[in-house]
């Protein structure tokens, strides 16, 4: 989809937090992405290498932690994992289900060098 816009947002957040922490360099960026949030890791890494080059985040490594999708039936409360195609409740076959997890789309943490290595 729109990986460039997403990558720019990641860079802005990482630079802001690194600056606040008085970091001189960001070495890694940890992202948490739910199964229901569509994003192509390779594309983000590609854009990242390009747009971070002149910043405090240059050559920082991106880490993608994927979270599986979990659904809950609104009728019988059964919780189940999304496995491939979207299905109704395996217990009571109701279609009234809600997403419990899998929509995560956030920057969890960054690793930084606080001072210039000597």
């Amino acid at each position: 989809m729109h990986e460039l816009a997403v990558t720019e947002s990641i860079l802005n957040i990482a630079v802001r937090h690194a600056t606040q922490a008085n970091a001189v360099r960001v070495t890694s960026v940890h992202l948490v992405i739910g199964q229901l949030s569509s994003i192509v890791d390779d594309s983000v890494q590609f854009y990242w290498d390009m747009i971070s080059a002149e910043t405090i985040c240059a050559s920082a490594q991106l880490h993608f932690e994927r979270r599986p999708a979990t659904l809950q039936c609104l009728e019988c409360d059964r919780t189940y994992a999304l496995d491939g195609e979207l299905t109704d409740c395996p217990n009571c076959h109701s279609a009234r289900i809600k997403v419990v997890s899998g929509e995560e789309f956030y920057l969890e943490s960054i690793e930084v060098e606080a001072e210039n290595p000597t």
Partner: protein
Amino acid sequence: MNTRVKVVEKILSANDRLAEQNRARLDQHGVFGLNIMAAPGAGKTSTILRTIEALSPQITIGVVEGDTAAVTIDADKVIAAGMPAVQINTGGECHLDAVMLSGALPQLPLDQIDLLIVENVGNLICPAAFSLGTHANVLISSVAEGDDKPYKYPNIYRGIDALIINKIDLLPYVEYDLDYFKRGVELLNPGVVTFPISCRTGEGVDVWVQWLLGKMGRRE
């Protein structure tokens, strides 16, 4: 010395903040904002024109047209229908975001407008991820696209407040299982209000417009 800095910030939080500002600006001018999303050819502009026809002249409608190319075909149709329109040319970008909308708002006479309709870029994937600050998000799915779309493009169905099924006049001529379609919608957005319409014949448009008027009246 490496240290870990906890961040925990939504990746699109900057867009979300700007969307909130858009919402505040609309509220300040007493404008109800409606974001219309759909695939190309589903009938976004046709639905907007039918809505204008049903509501004018009592309600003044401003339209923001999201396009990926510098063609003003859609905006021209709205202006011909007597309503103000501005075009956002995204320059190839696959969706509208809150920044683009905030740039378009000053180009419309917000004090004279009751309803702002934003026609998003024709796309079933990307617009779902970017809030604009509108008060309601509506998806149009047309019969001609097929009955499997909720299963293939689930994310866009999750975040909507209403669903319009357009081109129902084609139902006798195409293979389309309305129950299968609705089952998919129910899995993604239980209880979402659905309006079967035909922009060609005008069928069902009155029910859609009544819902919209209700939403506008309930807004505070």
